[in-house]
């Protein structure tokens, strides 16, 4: 048959399209972790505490892999986003609870993204009152007029920029033996700054929105059950790669800033960690990376938040809806841009603190979202034969309990410190 010959002749791109259509969610979702909040938190973890937190990073690599894999599996089985699954199985009250948690966490993260934009330009002395509103307008304009998917891809591509940290890590020539030892030696300081940074480290790596994002991605792509095996390895690989980058950010800052006792108070401090590789260009390189990573998050998050809300409450969504029928959808996106911009524009507010504390909010709220995920993934009526295996449950529960203990410790310590 002629058609077969036709397809055979062009099969190279059809095959490539097939591979690309499968590879994606895991690596993309993991890569998006390196946003403004991520880069700042990892930098601070390294600059303020050296390699002491590497063991946490080591452990949460497994947590990230497992939680993302669960998201993929729920998406493949239920064929709908996490918000929809929660609504159909937990009723309205718990849905509202989950959605409000997600909204708070996401607004926090978006605030971090705009703080990241402000911080990036502060390196060149540009005023945040100028760059933040302009970038917010740009985000809105491109979302409304342009192609969400294309823009997302472009920014994701840029965010691979953080691979320079890996190169930088080798140029710095840190003590890899010491780093390896830190990876498997739990050290903890029962102090506010340590716990705040540690929870932020967890909260920036495994995020509530990441959980929603990966599931929606799997559903939108229309992946089939037969893709599950490839997809699982891709998710594991993605978790590994993103945390390799995080590892190198931490050892870079540990070998430069921590060694000289420099505390990070603004973006230009964090940028100095790249000096061994880039020398004079370190500031520009860092500013560029921080800017694109921030814009990536600023694009994805308002839209992802709006989609989740509309899915949970049955409102019309999508950029092809009219203003009238999609007013809630557009309203949520606008609110998710305007509120963070206002917070960032508060005079004298510390951009670095915004970026770290927002990750703490994510970390503290994460266990609650994970509880929903755990309940769903272990429900035979929903998942059928695809319920969790014991190993997945053990790692997830340890993650949830770990964060809760750290949060409780933080509360106790801040309480004691107050009086």
């Amino acid at each position, binding site marked *: *048959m*002629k058609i077969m010959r036709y397809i055979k002749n062009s*099969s190279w791109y059809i095959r490539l399209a097939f591979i690309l259509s499968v590879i994606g969610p895991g690596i993309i979702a993991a890569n998006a972790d390196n946003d403004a909040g991520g880069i700042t938190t990892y930098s601070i973890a390294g600059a303020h505490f050296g390699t002491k937190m590497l063991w946490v990073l080591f452990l949460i690599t497994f947590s990230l892999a497992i939680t993302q894999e669960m998201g993929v599996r729920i998406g493949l089985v239920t064929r709908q986003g996490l918000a929809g699954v929660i609504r*159909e199985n937990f009723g309205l009250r718990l849905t509202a609870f989950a959605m409000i948690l997600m909204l708070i966490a996401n607004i926090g993260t978006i605030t971090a993204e705009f703080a990241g934009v402000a911080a990036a330009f502060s390196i060149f002395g540009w005023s945040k009152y100028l760059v933040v509103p302009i970038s917010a307008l740009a985000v809105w304009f491109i979302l409304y007029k342009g192609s969400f998917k294309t823009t997302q891809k472009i920014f994701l591509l840029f965010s691979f920029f953080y691979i320079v940290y890996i190169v930088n890590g080798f140029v710095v020539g840190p003590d890899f033996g010491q780093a390896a030892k830190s990876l498997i030696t739990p050290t903890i300081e029962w102090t506010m700054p340590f716990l705040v940074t540690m929870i932020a480290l967890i909260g920036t790596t495994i995020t509530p929105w990441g959980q929603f994002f990966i599931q929606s991605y799997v*559903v939108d792509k*229309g992946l089939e059950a037969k893709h599950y095996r490839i997809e699982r390895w891709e998710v594991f690989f993605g978790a590994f790669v993103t945390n390799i980058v995080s590892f190198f950010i931490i050892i870079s800052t540990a070998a430069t800033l921590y060694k000289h006792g420099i505390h990070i108070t603004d973006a230009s401090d964090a940028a100095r960690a790249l000096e061994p590789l880039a020398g004079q260009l370190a500031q520009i390189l860092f500013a560029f990376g921080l800017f694109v990573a921030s814009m990536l998050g600023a694009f994805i998050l308002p839209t992802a938040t709006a989609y989740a809300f509309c899915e949970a409450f*049955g409102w019309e969504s999508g950029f092809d809806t009219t203003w009238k029928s999609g007013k809630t959808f557009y309203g949520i996106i606008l609110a998710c841009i305007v509120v963070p911009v206002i917070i960032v524009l508060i005079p004298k507010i510390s951009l670095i603190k915004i970026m770290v504390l927002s990750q703490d909010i994510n970390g503290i709220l994460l266990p609650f979202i994970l509880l929903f995920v755990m309940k769903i993934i272990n429900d035979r009526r929903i998942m059928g034969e695809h319920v969790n295996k014991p190993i997945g449950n053990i790692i997830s529960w340890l993650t949830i309990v770990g964060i809760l203990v750290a949060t409780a410790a933080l509360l106790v310590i801040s309480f004691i410190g107050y009086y």
Partner: protein
Amino acid sequence: MLYLSQILGGRVEDSADQVVGRLKDILVESKPGNYARIVFLLVKSKKGEDIFIPYEYVESLGRQTVDLKNIFDKINLAPTPSRCIYLSRDILDQQIVDVDGARVVRVNDLSLGIFEDQMCVLGVDVSFRGILRRLGVAWLDPFRLVSVHLVDWRKVQPVKGALKLDTISSDLRKLHPADLANIIEDLNLHHGTKLVNSLESREAAKVLEELNPHLQKILIKHLGPAKAGRIIEKMSTDEIADLMQLFSQKEAQKYLSLLQDSRVEKVTKLIKYEDDTAGGLMNTDFISGHPDWTVAQMIEEIRKYSPDMRSITFVYVVDNFGKFLGPVSLRNLLLADNKEKLKELYKSADRLATLRPDYPLDKVVNLMTKYDLYSAAVISHDGKIAGVVTIDDVMRCLAPKA
């Protein structure tokens, strides 16, 4: 007005005021076009068992309590009913199709009431007010700024659970394929597939053509080869060609093997043309006639092939060697005498704007606009007619989002 959310979880008491249990769910019998009659209460008894109480035993359905007419021992409990819809399990919080509005909504609450002496589900609350009520915070809006929006139960189509043909509302099937396609795009894939499955193949084919290509592909895979084959068979040839290009070689082969050989040949020819050319746009399903045929013969031919055609506005007159002579409009066929021959009727192709397969989209648009054509024949180099481009094919390229 009584809402489901207000009575779920309420105490169920018998005529001796003994607590039987708590109301867990309500079962209804739903027929398309009617309000759904309540037939059973699902009660979680004090022992923790699920029991089904026939609705005949219910004295009153209230916000706090459900009163039964008899003492509990006198009630004949029903075995687990089949063919009933569970309101809380299958409807509440689920997606549902609002047929009148041609959209997918989420059920925030259900309103119950008496209709023709029967306790029925009357409406579906899809409003924000319903959300506030469910959350127990309706007092936040004392002035009722947020109004209740109820969709009539007879105008909705539940999608969870088994979707059998006789439970599909006929109004839904009467919707325009484009509206049905929008609905399917909004449903989750499982429900969307079920909806397509419940449609007749011909109708499903029309709906499928209206879906965005990405979803077309996913849905075809999800439907399984048997049903997918039956639907693809009913699609127009140019749409099949577009669809096949979305699949990998192996998959395309699988679906094409379900079609007749003559069909496959047509699809194969079409695929060779570039997307944005007359060849890529055209449809190869058209009716041709011989110059010596009479009008009566031609009309008979149209009757014969009409079921396979999406639309017919012209017939194309072709000589013994397959050379295209010219078109005859249905209007002229209708006005002409039955014994008149086609060769006296057709408009000569020489005096007509026709297209070549390699004409790019903008040239096609310009020609069709300039000569006010509803459809134009595509003529290949040997003078044979290859296909027909109609205005809807062109519009779809110009306004892809609609």
